């Protein structure tokens, strides 16, 4: 009988580089920065690491690049790729390894070097050879179609809809100003958001997250060993995934939610023993690749009732001083989104908040933190939902 992961694994050290246009740093440089911060935080030496799960989408194949950067002395490395949910999956696998007892100390690390591509937005040469027959879509375009449908389904005029999702970005920009490692650290007004150039209608520039370089790392051990490393380890309460790739074929998919987020949330709440997410979750870092994604995620994670997230956005429920602060570090929107590293960056913020080390953006007694990481695009999403606590 499966026992789940709750309280069996703890995070004892974490590292995270500044996210942004890190022109002066290579992927290797960022891996070194994140890993050595985590070693120091956990009070361990590189040689103590027994196994590594290394997440990257475009910045390296096999574990080789990581071994080269960190000189890990022939330790086993698994390269993990799950699109934008890559780093969360690296943490999930590293946690399972220590929980199973096959090793005592494991490293989960993610990295992405996006800004060497020469263009804005995502994309890279290579990839799977296909017939090439599909419409030319982009990430903003795919998520914009959720916004179009959400507005249409719930009777919001384009202006009302854009105001609703615009407020999501205004909130995240405010949180970003309180974070010295964030890509964007500037307040924006709702008027600025609404007047910005359209990227993919109805999404404007400020509805889209940053495209960033960065790396983040976590060191995990079995929960019973955690206090040997530090007095304030953070325990893993749930690690769940759900993968769906049916929506484009299923004509009953509504385009106003992501089913795999809902499914991963249900499983995570069950694993962590959460009965009422809106009341029990103290804070969340969700995958706000676009403002509309954050809005529908609030409903999929049962923070807001279906079709009602607008009320919670407008009342400030997800603000830093609200009932359930979301994106306290600025989120993908402002902290930035190096795709292979973002999942661990979300955990990093939860970890610092739970330890009371989040500085000016510290949330009072958060207890349980949730991270939600999305790979792919609607309707084909690979979703991770994790819950961590004291």
């Amino acid at each position, binding site marked *: 009988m499966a026992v789940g992961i709750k309280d069996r694994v703890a995070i004892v050290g974490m590292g995270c580089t500044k996210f942004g246009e890190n022109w002066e740093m290579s992927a290797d440089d960022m891996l070194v920065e994140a890993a050595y911060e985590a070693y120091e935080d956990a009070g361990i030496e590189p040689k103590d690491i027994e196994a590594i799960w290394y997440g990257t989408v475009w910045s390296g194949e096999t574990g080789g690049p990581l071994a080269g950067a960190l000189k890990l002395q022939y330790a086993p490395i698994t390269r993990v790729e799950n699109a934008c949910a890559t780093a969360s999956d690296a943490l999930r696998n590293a946690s399972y390894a220590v929980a199973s007892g096959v090793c005592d100390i494991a490293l989960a690390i993610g990295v992405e070097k996006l800004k060497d591509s020469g263009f804005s937005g995502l994309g890279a040469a290579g990839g799977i050879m296909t*017939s090439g*027959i599909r419409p*030319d879509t982009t990430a903003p375009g795919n998520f914009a179609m959720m916004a179009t449908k959400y507005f249409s389904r719930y009777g919001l005029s384009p202006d009302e809809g854009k105001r609703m999702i615009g407020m999501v970005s205004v909130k995240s920009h405010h949180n970003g100003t309180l974070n010295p490692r964030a890509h964007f650290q500037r307040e924006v007004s709702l008027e600025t958001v609404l007047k910005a150039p359209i990227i*993919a*209608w109805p999404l404007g520039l400020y509805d889209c997250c940053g495209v960033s370089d960065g790396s983040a790392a976590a060191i995990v051990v079995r929960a019973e060993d955690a206090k040997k490393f530090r007095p304030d380890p953070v325990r893993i309460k749930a690690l769940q995934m759900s993968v769906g790739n049916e929506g484009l074929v299923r004509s009953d998919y509504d385009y106003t939610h992501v089913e795999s987020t809902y499914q991963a949330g249900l499983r995570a709440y069950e694993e962590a023993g959460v009965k009422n997410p809106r009341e029990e979750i103290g804070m969340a870092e969700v995958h706000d690749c676009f403002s509309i994604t954050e809005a529908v995620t609030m409903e999929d994670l049962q923070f807001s009732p279906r079709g009602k997230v607008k009320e919670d956005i407008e009342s400030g429920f997800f603000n830093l001083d609200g009932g359930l602060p979301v994106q306290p570090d600025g989120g993908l929107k402002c902290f930035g989104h190096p795709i292979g590293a973002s999942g661990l960056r979300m955990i990093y913020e939860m970890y610092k908040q739970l330890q009371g080390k989040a500085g000016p953006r510290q949330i009072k007694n958060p207890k349980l933190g949730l991270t939600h990481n999305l790979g792919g695009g609607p309707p084909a999403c690979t979703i991770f939902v994790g819950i961590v606590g004291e």
Partner: protein
Amino acid sequence: MAGITSYGAYIPLHRLPRTQIAAAWGVPPQGGEKAVRNFDEDSITMATTAAIDCLNGIDRSKIDGLYFATTTSPYTERQGSTIIASALDLRSDIRTADFTNSLRCGMEAVAAAMDAINAGAANSILVTVADTRIGAAQGDFEQSFGDGAAALLLGKDNVIATMEGSYTMTAPIMDRWRAQGDTFVRAWEDRWTLDEGYTKMLPQAAAGVLKKLNLEPKDLAKAAYYGPNGRRHGALARRLGLDAAQVQDCLFDTVGDTGAAQSMMTLVAALEEAKAGDKILCVGYGNGADAFVVQVTNAIEKVRDRLGIKRHLEAKRPIPSFAKYLRWRELVTLESAARPERIPTSISALWRDTMSILPLYGSKCKACGTQQYPPQRVCIFCHEKDQMEPVRMSDKKATIFTFTHDNLAASADPPNTVTVVDFDGGGRGIFNMTDREPEEVQVGQTVEMTFRKLYFDRGLHNYYWKTMPARG
């Protein structure tokens, strides 16, 4: 008696007033406007669309051949007619051929099809013709050339116009030409080409067929013949012995000189207005001339629901600017979009997926009855394995479920409109939308599928279907 059993036509949605071209270069305008294909159209897509118009209500499995006539085939080595036949979902054991290199290649295709039918080698052959020629900047041809297509189904059954007889003459005249690699049409001096070529040869062919059939010009209800411009076309009527009322407008002022397609487009326009018993003369010109006479039957009343020329002429939209015209024709070099390079197309994967791409097949689950696109092995709803039967989606209407106008994606007609649509009868797909005004696109809007070029990359013209607002 064998003859025409159906007709169809296609005129691109966008029109460019000739005054705009003239104003750009400071040259005199020729008057009227010309039809301009969208950036995602070429002769193959236009011929396909005209053929779909022609095949409205006709059993496609009964067609024994597909001929494609054009002087502007996207390929020099790859048969356009096979692509069109596949997009139309015709049988694979049919005769296909491309007729090219002369503006009367469409007339030759009709003659070859009639020969095959009369010889008993085929019961029914579809002839498609399309052209999209361009003239160099500030020249006459830049203003006169337009884009368009026509299709005639020829056969023995349900004949709407019997083929009474034909006449052909050939002449190796160098009046207008393009050598291998030429983008623009070349010509010798206008007066000589028109006086010694067009004005002499076209009437010879016309007179030839009338003599063969013991007909006088007054016996004709209409004459549908090629015209390089409105003035020359009109002036030829007297030489042909025709009254103005007998002359079918050659579409110069509304569509332009559509090259190989023009005489057949003009014939389609004549057939749209024709009544049983009418005799119609059709003459094409190019390195000689070809003429035939058809006589309309009562069956013509059964093919009145075509978009044809008339309804395609009415459903039009001005191209937003002359600059956009230059862009669509790839006559200016644009700053390249800061987007990742396209991954090379896998041609083996393209071939494997042909049925879901060219005739746009989805699958229908025999266990639970739901349609799905693209074709699936395991049913998305009931999870039965390999219980699918193919179902063609290209001729189904669809409804927009959601959409976006994407400014980040590269497009020659930005923004790049992407639609998620539900087909009538079931099945969902994601398709680019074309020939649309962004402001008019709405959730719940009914759209049709249209065969277009998705992209050109490393020598490969890749075709697929797009959504568009219902036309006509």
